[in-house]
């Protein structure tokens, strides 16, 4: 579903990603770990078509990242710590706007469905400006899933969330497994990454230093590679 082939990224003379290659199968949940500055966000932004790789190639759902960026945008959902939402619109208006941008069929019904699934249906007519951080993040997840993307890219989605919001968010992500949604989640949360994902990738200074099934990872390996 996601194929990354020898991707490199330079910002000026600084090499942020070094020769990254990996594959993620359909329905697989993969966590991307690494310390600050390891290149997690850059990699997610490249896969989300927001940045272009300096070298190498990648494809999502069979579409080349550089050639078919528009097709890729239609089949990915992105959740980051940025809200992407308009404060002067309510939840329904925000989702309706993005739904129209993605040409979602039967939009009103779909908006009701996603709002119910993230438990915000009862607050759907509230202005987004009065939402708490947890509610915003759930609405952002609803926005990302509105067009039924087969691939979900998460960039530190739990930043700033309290324990109950984290639990609700994690439970929702767990449920996505039953819908065969492929997921790549950049995170600092090691425990969450090990328990919730099928596989863990660890980036260190822009290089992929570990690619292993979560079940087989030892704490020693984590300690060494995340130091």
């Amino acid at each position, binding site marked *: 579903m996601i194929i990354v082939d020898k991707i490199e990224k330079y910002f000026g003379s600084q090499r942020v990603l070094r020769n990254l290659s990996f594959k993620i199968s359909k329905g697989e949940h993969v966590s991307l770990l690494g310390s600050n500055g390891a290149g997690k966000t850059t990699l997610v932004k490249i896969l*989300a*078509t927001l940045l272009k790789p300096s070298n190498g190639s990648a494809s999502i759902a069979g579409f080349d990242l550089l050639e078919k960026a528009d097709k890729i945008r239609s089949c990915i959902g992105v959740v*980051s710590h940025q809200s*992407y939402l308009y404060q002067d619109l309510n939840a329904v208006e925000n989702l309706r706007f993005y739904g129209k941008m993605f*040409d979602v069929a039967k939009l009103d019904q779909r908006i009701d469905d996603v709002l119910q699934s993230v438990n915000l249906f009862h607050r759907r007519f509230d202005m987004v400006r009065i939402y708490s951080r947890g509610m915003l993040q759930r609405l952002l997840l609803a926005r990302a899933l509105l067009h039924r993307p087969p691939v979900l890219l998460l960039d530190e989605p739990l930043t700033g969330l309290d324990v109950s919001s984290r639990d609700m968010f994690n439970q929702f992500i767990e449920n996505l497994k039953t819908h065969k949604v492929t997921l790549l989640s950049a995170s600092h949360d090691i425990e969450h990454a090990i328990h919730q994902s099928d596989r863990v990738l660890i980036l260190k200074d822009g290089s992929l230093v570990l690619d292993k099934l979560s079940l087989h990872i030892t704490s020693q390996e984590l300690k060494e590679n995340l130091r």
Partner: protein
Amino acid sequence: MADIRHIIHLVSKDLLIELRSKEILLSMIIFSLTIILIFNFTYDIGIQAVQRHTPGLLWVAFIFAGTLGLNRSFMREYENGRMEGLLLCPVSRGSIYIAKLVGNVIFMMIIEMVSLPVMVVLLNLDIIKFIPMLFLLLVLGNIGFASVGTLFSAISLHTRSRELMLPIMLFPVTIPVILAAVKSTAFLLNAKPLAEIMPWVRILIGFDLIFTTLCSFLYKYVVED
């Protein structure tokens, strides 16, 4: 067809947000009216002077107020990473540019519809018979000014002193459109024949076509990596 649909949704979203926040329009209207009032009370001008100076005064007020609106229109998208949210949509970058341009032209038209009657009353202007042609000149002038301004406001957001950079970049490039707009308005208000106005109108149309096409093509290089 999909592009036109996306443009309509983007413009509707901007208008709805502006209707609620009144953030851009209010400041533009106050600014435009202030300029008109200052000119009116500073100079005690006679009828001949009014005819000579009004076109310049008119466009100074509209262009300065328009610059204020241009500064704000993209800033709203960059707060909370909303621009990233837009760029994640399968929408052509040209459509985003055209939608912003349409929004900016609508905002400029609104302030002109509010400011113009005030100017007519204060300066005792007789513009009734010129209204259709004046409307055309305003639309053409606004499109020309906003076509470059929309692109430059997106560029200036990436600079350190963004609100200062926009007029510095924008005014030199838009001199032909400002000149053509002022000249054609002056000829119109002085009841000159259409044959004298048309060369300036053609400059406005040419500027609008060239810069709208060019800027919609260049916009993706401003917002993309």
